[in-house]
């Protein structure tokens, strides 16, 4: 397999960044990594994953949809879309890589969301295999192998070198573009690393968590469960879980008056917010119980019902780490399963 010594990773980043925009996960402060546009000298984080997921690259927190100019009774609609430049996101973990295929199911089904597709078409996802899963990880529950991540190209770290493998044509083109920096390397040590990671995977506290009891056929059984009241009792109704989640894709569309015209933008929204379904004449989800239930029913029942059994969760563990009251999908799954 082709590889590069870790000490030369900066050279590789420089080479990639010379041709297109490169984003890498880097430390913002101890314990908190985020994706940043690569600038020479920037170092790859040692954190397992970023605080925010990688969904921003394709589905940013806010984006402009259209501009309007109003002149008396007339309105001019301005299509402000432009072809986005090619970019590479490096170091995406297996869980986040899977989240893109989940987001694809939403945004690329008819009618295709051109804003999302534009970025998807121009982005190359280079993943990085995990070797140090955290206690909050449960990607294997969703059939994800963190030692063999998806994405256009996958990278593997054996401690000394980074190995590259193409998963798609785009990934192959990426590897070809840096081929002059790579050399053929022996994967014996990498195989050891992967075997060790798999041992850890089996020992993770959530290793036994299964989706066996969830899916589209559980609609009324779980919707009517009496567990929701207790589960949602302490929920603050904030959007932390939603916003750190790599698969949450609900959005709002708003207008902003700049003083010179109207910008219509979309932004992430959260089903946990009290106004999410509020209409001028009523709200079908009046209390936090209904809103909380919606979020988990969507991931565990509604999404698989509409997408051939695929769940709306990748087990990245961000909600486990970040919910201010430590309520999360794992606790919900375990509670719902209790008869």
């Amino acid at each position, binding site marked *: 397999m082709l590889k590069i010594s870790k000490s030369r990773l900066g050279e590789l980043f420089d080479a990639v960044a010379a041709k297109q925009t490169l984003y890498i996960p880097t430390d913002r402060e101890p314990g*908190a990594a985020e994706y940043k546009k690569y600038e020479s000298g920037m170092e790859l984080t040692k954190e397992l994953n970023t*605080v925010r997921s990688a969904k921003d690259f394709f589905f940013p927190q806010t984006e402009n949809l259209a501009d309007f100019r109003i002149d008396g009774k007339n309105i001019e609609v301005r299509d402000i879309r432009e072809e986005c430049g090619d970019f590479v996101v490096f170091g995406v973990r297996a869980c986040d890589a899977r989240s893109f295929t989940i987001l694809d199911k939403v945004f690329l089904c008819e009618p295709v969301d051109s804003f999302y597709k534009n970025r998807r078409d121009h982005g190359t996802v280079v993943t990085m295999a995990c070797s*140090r899963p*955290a*206690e909050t990880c449960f990607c294997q529950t969703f059939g994800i192998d963190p030692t063999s991540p998806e994405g256009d190209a996958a990278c593997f770290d054996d401690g000394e070198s980074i190995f590259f493998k193409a998963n798609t044509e785009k990934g192959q083109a990426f590897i070809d573009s840096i081929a002059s920096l790579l050399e053929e390397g022996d994967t014996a040590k990498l195989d050891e690393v992967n075997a060790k990671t798999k041992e850890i995977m089996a020992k993770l506290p959530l290793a036994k968590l299964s989706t066996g009891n969830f899916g589209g056929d559980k609609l009324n059984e779980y919707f009517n469960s009496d567990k929701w009241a207790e589960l949602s009792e302490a929920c603050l109704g904030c959007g*932390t879980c939603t916003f750190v989640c790599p698969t949450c894709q609900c959005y709002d569309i708003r207008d902003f008056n700049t003083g010179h015209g109207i910008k219509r933008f979309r932004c992430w929204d959260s089903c946990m917010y009290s106004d999410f379904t509020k209409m001028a004449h009523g709200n079908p989800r009046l209390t936090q119980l209904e809103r909380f239930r919606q979020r988990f029913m969507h991931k565990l029942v509604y999404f698989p019902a509409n997408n051939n059994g695929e769940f709306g969760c990748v087990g990245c563990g961000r909600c*486990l780490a970040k919910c201010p009251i*430590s309520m999360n999908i794992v606790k919900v799954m375990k509670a719902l399963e209790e008869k």
Partner: protein
Amino acid sequence: MQEAMIKRAKELLADGSVDRVIGWKRGEFAYDITPAVFTSAEELEHDFVFDDFTAANVSKYLVKETAKEGKILAFLKPCDTYSFNQLIKEHRIDREKVYVVGIPGGPKLDIEKIKAKGITGVLSVKNEDYTLKIETLYGEETMPFSEAVLDKCASCKSKKHVAYDELIGEDGDVLESNRFDMVEKLENMTAQERFDFWRGQLSKCIRCNACRNVCPACTCENCVFDNPKSGIDNKAAADSFEENMFHIIRAFHVAGRCTDCGECSRVCPQHIPLHLLNRKFIKDINELYGEYQAGADTTSRAPLTDYTKDDCEPSVVHERGVE
């Protein structure tokens, strides 16, 4: 302590003094604790937890809980009792429906500080003589307790319970805290440095509203930022200054009412030191109107809602604004 609390809660449930108990419920790991309401001895024995990670301030939940029938036992740490008092003062909590048991405060631990040391795969955390023995997926680690203390506890203002019906353990005193040190540091910066500091911090905001929703001073039934009729409702920044506005407006709105419980910064997923905005107001109020601690009592008039002839003149803004 946990055993004593469970025992007392069971007694009070059994003799009918209270119908429910609000405290903390253990989670999947050593640290992921959820505020919870318990209604039976079995639930308490099975799930109730009080340890180094039970930092959450449960006083705000009492707004919702005291709107229900029956009486609730609330276990409040010293800092929580300040929030409780302030909520009483603002008529948000029905005092008659709460039986407050004062319990010792922190310092509590911050799992994120442990993880920031590179200690990951945390399976258990034990405090042995103020050294943390941390069992992880990758072997045992140790670190000093003091380095994993929550920021809000590291600058604790008081070990004294300002409201309770009974105490478990000894009461403490109001402390000489270092809580204004960072505010002073910010005050001593140039305007540009200070502006850069806050832009840097607030640009991290993902607008999840966790700070607002956890805040015991934020009990508006319909926040201006959620109300389409306010004209400033939003869910995301439409321009690069909006996150700043959200936090600054919120700080203004809780000024004089914020007890400095520190929950805003504790829950921020992006580690924005939001409490510093509130502390600036507290420090200014202390300096301009005389020492005042919100939540210290339930009857005194707050400086910003009270008029005295000694109040500072509006011109103070100009005097203090000079570089």
